[in-house]
């Protein structure tokens, strides 16, 4: 009996062979090896090939999507070969693993590296202790940037949220709601640099003299009313507010859309009951609408606060941070890319990160309360 069984095996029964111990090990080595080889060859091809662009693009898509699928499939297949206890233990990591790897590679490691570099000099060679942080917290330029960021945070957020709320509440009562909302939302689709160009035509200032016609809308209005043209972007500290207006113009649409959907979610019985009881519209707004959309209110506010803390583009495009309009992110940019001071720039980046973290944590906690996570 035993002999016949052995003979059957020697007949090179492929399936039977795969199920033997050695066969299993060989297969579980060969399959990953082939996978790796395919991916590697694909990478080499994409890197060195002179093939037509179209072929390269197609191969890249196939290689990228197929490669990821193949990796998942092979590693899953490998783990499933393990004993049951280990399958349960390891399988989650196969699916979470790549996400963790990407997150740490693109987020955690750069943060740690930046933190490390912030203790070194401009060329990241010599350790200079807390010098960069002393600069970041005491330098005149940085203090100005902090003050301006505070202005952005308080006035920008306040204006965005209150205007967004006003428009959402009013539009809810109008027949032409969609038209108003799309018009207000439109600037959201415009890039910050584009917005800079747009607002240059509002704030443009040509100076005083005869025969000069202002091409800036604001100055034209002022002159038309008999006033003197103003250099809107030069007069401190008001130029900060004129820049904040640009952010409000861009971001109110976001606030409005969020508030609008929250307002639509308020049960109509509640509003009807209040109206039957004789509440005025203003009472309804303060005592029903506001409490009902509170969580959206907080989310939108914190989002815009974070946004205004890391604001960069508008200042960069409109004034370049001159004339007392500098902000933290712009100072970071100048230190890093104009003065090439990696140390100071990293210290500023860390300060900015630390400034944003409390708001982020608060925001995430709100999300959790609303079961968004």
């Amino acid at each position, binding site marked *: 009996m035993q002999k016949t069984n052995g003979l059957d095996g020697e007949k090179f029964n492929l399936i039977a062979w795969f199920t033997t111990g050695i066969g299993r090990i060989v297969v579980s080595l060969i399959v990953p090896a082939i996978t790796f080889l395919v991916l590697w060859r694909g990478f080499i091809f994409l890197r060195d090939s002179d093939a037509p662009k179209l072929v390269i693009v197609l191969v890249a898509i196939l290689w990228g999507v197929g490669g990821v699928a193949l990796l998942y499939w092979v590693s899953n297949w490998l783990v499933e070969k393990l004993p049951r206890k280990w399958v349960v233990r390891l399988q989650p990591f196969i699916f979470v693993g790549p996400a963790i790897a990407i997150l740490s590679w693109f987020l955690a490691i750069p943060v740690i590296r930046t933190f490390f570099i912030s203790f070194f000099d401009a060329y990241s060679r010599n350790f200079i202790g807390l010098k960069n942080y002393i600069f970041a917290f005491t330098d005149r330029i940085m203090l100005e940037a902090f003050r301006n960021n505070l202005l952005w945070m308080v006035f920008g957020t306040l204006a965005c949220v209150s205007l967004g709320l006003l*428009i959402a509440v009013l539009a809810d009562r109008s027949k032409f709601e969609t038209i*108003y909302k799309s018009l*207000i939302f*439109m600037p959201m689709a415009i890039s910050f640099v584009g917005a800079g160009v747009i*607002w240059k*035509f509002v704030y443009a200032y040509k100076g005083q003299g*005869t025969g000069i016609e202002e*091409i800036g*809308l604001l100055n034209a209005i002022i002159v038309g009313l008999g006033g003197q043209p103003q250099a809107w972007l030069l007069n401190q500290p008001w130029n900060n507010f004129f820049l904040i207006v640009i952010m409000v*113009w861009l971001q109110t649409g976001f606030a409005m859309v969020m508030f609008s959907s929250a307002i639509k979610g308020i049960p109509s019985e509640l509003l009807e009951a209040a109206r039957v009881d004789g509440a005025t519209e203003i009472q309804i707004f303060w005592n029903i609408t506001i409490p009902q959309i509170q969580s959206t209110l907080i989310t939108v506010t914190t989002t815009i606060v974070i946004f205004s803390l890391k604001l960069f583009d508008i200042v960069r495009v409109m004034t370049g941070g001159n004339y007392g309009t500098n902000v933290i992110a712009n100072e970071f940019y100048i230190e890093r890319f104009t003065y090439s001071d990696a140390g100071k720039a990293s210290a500023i980046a860390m300060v900015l990160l630390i400034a944003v973290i409390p708001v982020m944590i608060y925001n995430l906690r709100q999300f959790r309360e609303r079961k968004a996570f």
Partner: protein
Amino acid sequence: MSAQPDSARKQRRLSSLIVNGILIFICLLWTIPTLGVLITSFRNSEDIYRTGWWTVFPHSAWNEVSRITVPDSEDVNAQMSIPGVEGKYTYEQLKAGVETSNGQKITWYGNKRTRTIIVEEKKWQWFDTSVTLKNYQDVMTG
């Protein structure tokens, strides 16, 4: 609800008017800057830096009708009498532009040596005809 009292309906119409009025006002504020860039995109660069984008719309503007040369006998550092114009004016006054009684505006051109005065008349201008698609052509074809 069909038997609504007249005053309530009036009230509702009024509030709807206010709501729409405010919204239209905000929407205008929101779209005018973009409109400015849209119109600017059709103008040539010389016009863009010379006049505001709103000048493509009908408006009345000063248009040059003639030029006067101030005779050499007049001292540019004192009050001058200009041929064909009543009264005497200093260089500074003329430089800033003077509106004459017949609705014309006279402005000194350039520095004191030019001795040239531009006479302008207010004329109603319809839509600007110098708007073109040239900028778009340049952008699209590189």
